[in-house]
């Protein structure tokens, strides 16, 4: 049997070699032809592979060339649109249906510092696949190392979210990304400059033509095409195969005794974590005023009060998902807590204990005094670590269409 298998593999490898030879010869001819006919091009040409025609993991290609999300949570009945519940509950609706080419083009754009004014900052600078799609900083750094006000959230499962930014001021990824792209402090670009830059890069003209085949051949690349491609890539970043998920789908041994104790503390009504960090996404996508302290010397961040122009939301932030939380320290909107242990400690130190004097915040009713023991806090941390899954971590491109070096 084993011998047979090896035969088959050898056969396949043999066939592969032949095909490879053919491909290489055709490619060489092709490149020679390009070199011969190309003549003068306005910008340097860097060989970038063609866009992928298959979907990223977690998605299935349908007959309309759309990638449709598929995961083990799709086997559960949808009992509410919010996609909240218990272990075997359906997820909220995801943004899917993008083409594989669009998603792959978005990947190149995501990692390309050509999108920033000084060509040094890319989306991946603050959303680094090697840092849980965050940046590992308390608050992010923008252009020229500028210290920004809030922490970069992980982008895992962002395609499921209905509101974006800590204060929920954007309601689509396309809308959201305009801010970092064109904020003076972050990527510092302008729409005109971005479009000029991208349109001047021949690779991008080709890749956009490939990703959006219906567009006119010489039509310049438009801003909404850029943002849609990036949104397509971001929506493909899923993490739903953690040890916790294995347990949720029915494999009891996925979690050890301490981790199960942690899960039970997490969902008990004493600690109440699961009331806002509701499975399966580990966020109920609502706002909550929990009154965490800012880093020393910084004033209280008014949070959602500003975009919603509503005093009752002073200090309110969107409940963040906890998936891959162990990979994305430090914690809270301004990174005040360095470790998960410090973070869970906050919740048992008393309702409003860190609210600055003179502030009258409408602290969320689930923030109370659960009097968790040290043992229980340790178990909570054990459980939070079971939410790690980076099996579908995106690949960083080896070459960028702009020819710039990858900056993360």
């Amino acid at each position, binding site marked *: 049997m084993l011998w047979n298998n090896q035969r088959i593999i050898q056969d396949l490898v043999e066939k592969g070699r032949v095909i490879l030879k053919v491909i290489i010869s055709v490619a060489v001819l092709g490149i020679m032809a390009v070199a011969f006919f190309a003549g003068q091009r306005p910008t340097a040409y860097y060989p970038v592979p063609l866009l992928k025609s298959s979907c990223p993991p977690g998605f299935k290609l349908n007959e309309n060339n759309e990638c449709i999300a598929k995961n083990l949570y799709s086997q559960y009945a949808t009992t509410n649109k919010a996609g909240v519940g218990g272990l075997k509950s359906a997820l909220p609706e995801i943004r899917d249906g993008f083409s594989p080419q669009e998603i792959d083009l978005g990947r190149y754009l995501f990692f390309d510092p050509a999108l920033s004014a000084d060509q040094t900052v890319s989306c991946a600078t603050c959303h680094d696949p090697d840092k849980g799609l965050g940046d590992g900083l308390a608050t992010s750094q923008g252009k020229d190392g500028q210290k920004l006000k809030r922490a970069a959230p992980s982008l895992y499962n962002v395609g499921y979210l209905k509101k974006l930014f800590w204060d929920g001021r954007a309601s689509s990824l396309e809308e959201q990304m305009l801010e970092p792209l064109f904020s003076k402090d972050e990527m510092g670009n302008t729409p005109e400059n971005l479009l000029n830059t991208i349109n001047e890069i021949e690779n991008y003209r080709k890749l956009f033509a490939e990703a959006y085949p219906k567009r006119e051949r010489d039509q310049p690349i438009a801003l909404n095409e850029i943002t849609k491609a990036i949104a397509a890539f971001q929506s493909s970043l899923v993490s739903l195969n953690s040890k916790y998920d294995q347990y949720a789908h029915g494999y009891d041994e996925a979690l050890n005794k301490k981790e199960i104790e942690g899960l039970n503390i997490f969902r*008990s009504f004493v600690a109440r974590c699961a009331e806002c960090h509701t499975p399966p996404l580990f966020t109920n996508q609502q706002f909550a005023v929990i009154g965490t302290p800012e880093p020393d010397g910084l004033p209280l961040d008014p949070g959602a009060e500003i975009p*919603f122009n509503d005093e009752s939301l002073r200090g309110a932030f969107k409940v963040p998902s906890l998936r891959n939380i162990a990979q994305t320290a430090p914690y809270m909107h301004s990174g005040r807590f360095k470790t998960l242990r410090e973070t869970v400690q906050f919740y048992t130190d008393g309702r409003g204990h860190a609210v600055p004097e003179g502030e009258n915040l409408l602290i*969320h009713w689930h923030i109370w005094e659960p009097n968790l023991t040290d043992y229980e806090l340790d178990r909570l941390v054990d459980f939070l670590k079971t939410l790690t899954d980076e099996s579908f971590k995106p690949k960083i491109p080896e070459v960028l269409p702009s020819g710039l070096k990858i900056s993360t």
Partner: protein
Amino acid sequence: MKKKSPFIKIITSILLIGIGIFIGKSFFGQKNVETVPIPSTIKYRNAGLTNDTTQVASAQEFTGKIIEVKKGSSIQNAVKEANPGDLIRVYPGTYSENVYIDKDNISLQGVVINGEWPTLDGKKEINDAFLYSGNGILIENFKIINYKGNGIMGQAGNNFIIRNNWIIDTGVYGIFPQYGKNGLVEHNVLSKIADAAIYIGMCHNVDVLQNEVFDNVAGIEIENSRHCLVENNYAHNNTGGLLAFVTPGLPIKTTFDVILRNNFVVNNNHENFGAPGSTVSGIPPGTGILIMAADDVIVENNIITGNNNTGITIVDLATGDPKANDPNSEGNPDRVVILDNIMFDNGNAPTGELKAVMLTQMETKGPDIFAYGGGTGSTIRDKNKYRTFGLDNYGMAQITDTQDIPTMMTPTPVPPRSVSTEELGELTYYGVCAGCHAFGTRLIGPPTEILQAIHQNNPQGIVDYITAPKNLREDYPEMPPQDYLSEEAKMAVAEYILALKH
């Protein structure tokens, strides 16, 4: 002294041992009692039948095994051992544990013998007595005391029955199903709960019948839930008796279609001992029924007496519950319907804002019915019968009773979503395997066509391999075992992989 013969010694000792065993058995041994082994399940009277028949159309049947738990052993161990369809019978004794049920169709039945209950005692150290997330969970005949969080809490889980439990001081909630559809909470007795004794949270289609709730902050609370019937309950000496309301800031935003019918709502004057910041901590003592921001609530045939603040309070969110705003929560109670109720002796000692409002009317007593704030379309059947405040725009009720609604539960059980084998294979392939395997390209593991070539016509081969991979090939990293997948999912994905075309 004459020595006893060894023979007599042996006889004596055997006799003594025999007497010992007899005495032991009769004093300490468990009596051999016959009990009804099978709990009755939800009866679906209405499936395919009209509402006016009592014929049972369908009922769940017990097909599994019966697992017995006796004093000194653990209920959780029985749950671990149980498979869907099994019944766990728990005998009298004290069980200090947190029981969690992450499986479907498990029934837990306490066996009460000679007045002795199987008792879950949290000793004020353990958080929750029962936590469940599965569908079709039944929990009955337990005494639950001294927990910190909840007596019984469900997170998701449809078709639940929580019945005949006696729950005292279990922390925040007594019985708290959350995110469930179709459930029955009946014949429970609950007291000394610091929030709601029975709290139906973000649920659909739940009947709460014949419970006694007393000495709690809130008796029975229907919050952000739809299609609920609260009937024949006895709510006394709570801070607030029956509540139907909307809490803003939750992912499910509305409460509507609630009937409060045939309840005794009496002397709910307990001082409020709710935790600071909780919604119920704002309920004034002496509140019989509170309707806050909930729509289409019908109050019918209740006996509402001796509640010192008001009999029925109907308010909007802005008045009743100052919290961070939620633009997606509509805060007005609309289309409340008050039918015939017996109300007297309410409002003897109004407190707080109500007292101030009543003083502007030169009144020192609170009314039977008090409405304040926004809301439209509410009606009342016989306004003149009661002492009311704020009901000027209430019209005449369009209905006289709700007889035609015997239950809010669904006519048939909420079915689980069933996925075909092929679909399960597809979900598993794209949801799990696709991280390392793809057609026509090497990701981390070998391309899918190579897997097909190796395991041609042999799905079991794939099942065996993914359960316990043996690294056959030096040029690939070892595959982690996928033994966490169910047997069903493993075979489904194996077949799916072999059938994949591109």
